[in-house]
């Protein structure tokens, strides 16, 4: 809309030093499984790309669909929600609700024309540090291929 819409930091983030596109990804991780799984990846010194910034939530069921929308509208190139495997939810059924909610949201965003790679979900348990590293690698690669998020790009 105007010069004020530009956030200089956001622009810097999009481009790495070599000029390649470095996606900015938001990760919503449940406290009990995926966050602990990411901790384990750390303790095991597994290497993965730094593009995912983690927001800790109690449960994947805590994630409001509007958070995803907010991320995509605010300039994130992708969003990843990660929770406990089905049956392992610390709150016993939060991830069931999340699964239903986000299955619909994902299809809907795709229908609106938002690249499905920009919104992904995974189940990573507290013991799956290796899976977390793998998921991050895949998601970062996916979104790198999808390119910068163009909706928020017009914010400037």
């Amino acid at each position, binding site marked *: *809309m*105007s*010069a*004020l*819409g530009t*956030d*200089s*930091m956001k622009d810097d983030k999009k481009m790495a030093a070599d000029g390649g596109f470095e996606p900015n990804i938001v990760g919503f991780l449940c406290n009990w499984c995926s966050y602990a799984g990411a901790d384990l990846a750390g303790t095991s010194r597994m290497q993965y790309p730094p593009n995912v910034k983690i927001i800790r939530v109690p449960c994947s069921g805590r994630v409001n669909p509007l958070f995803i929308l907010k991320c995509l509208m605010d300039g994130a190139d992708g969003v990843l929600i990660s929770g406990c495997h089905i049956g392992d939810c610390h709150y016993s059924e939060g991830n069931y609700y999340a699964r239903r909610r986000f299955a619909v949201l994902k299809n809907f965003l795709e229908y609106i024309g938002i690249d499905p790679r920009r919104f992904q979900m995974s189940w990573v348990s507290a013991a799956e540090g290796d899976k977390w590293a793998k998921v991050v690698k895949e998601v970062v690669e996916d979104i790198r291929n999808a390119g910068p998020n163009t909706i928020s790009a017009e914010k400037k």
Partner: protein
Amino acid sequence: MKKTVKKEALIALIENLMKDHEVVSPVETAGKGVFYRKIDKAKDVYLGPAFAVEPVKKFFLHPSEWICGCNKEEGTASPCPVPADDKKRVIFGVRPCEARGLVLLDKIFAPDDPAGYQDTSYIDNRSRSVIVGLACSVPDRTCFCVSLDGSPVETRGMDAVLFDMGDNFIVEILTEKGKSILGSLPGTIDAGSEKALEAAKEKTKKLVVKTVKAPDSLDASFKSDYWKKVSLSCLSCGVCTYLCPTCHCFDLVEEERKKLRCYDGCAFPDFTLETSGENPRPTKKERYRQRVFHKFDYFKKNFGENLCVGCGRCIRFCPVKIDISEVAAGAPIK
């Protein structure tokens, strides 16, 4: 000064204008209606009989605009006003009622009295724009400009005006600004055309069939249950106010450390909601009454005119077909 101009000549002129001007005009969007747009191709200009959904107001009073902000990264709070866009602008196809709406808005945002509130953003937008009007030839059945001191062929608020005469336009230049844009157009006008124009004008005026007889003052009706009755079907949406050429209420909201001014409307319950939770206009009755009073009573008391130009948009687009002309005329003032 009047000229008869070929339609192609006008298009050519617009093509030329686009080089150093921002050109805005109604554009037809398939299946959706006519909308004012900043154009990039002269042939997109639509100067036919259909009315634009939104009035031209939005180019002067933006639906939403950043008005100030503060620096986010540094964490310091210094105001930084938004630089205004100062490119010269020509707006084609503005209808008489819309242009008159601007004249009314001027009273609020750019009053003659320099001590009055001067809205810089509005004034900037006004001064950089040249308004080339288009007289109506086929009024809608919801139009009622004639009974509000207006006319489908009047020119208040315009810098120049176009009359559609079939194959040609008759262009009438009204101000210096108008002359600067259209003065270069070739051609003159003959007596026959002049006469035909006058006849066409008279004919068009008669086509405005809807009338509204709003009382001089609505005071006496203020406490009447009438307002409850007429507002029962109101949905409290913003169609009437947002599409009105003269409604100008706005809200200030803060988003990401910037102040945003955006349209607001008296029909919304939140419009007068106070932080305490108290709402002086708690129901649709008070809210709808406010709109009618503002149009046909308060504004008149302050500025001597009704704040309605009879464009008929609020009737055409009201999802439940509330007709403000009927409501105002029917108010029980005795």
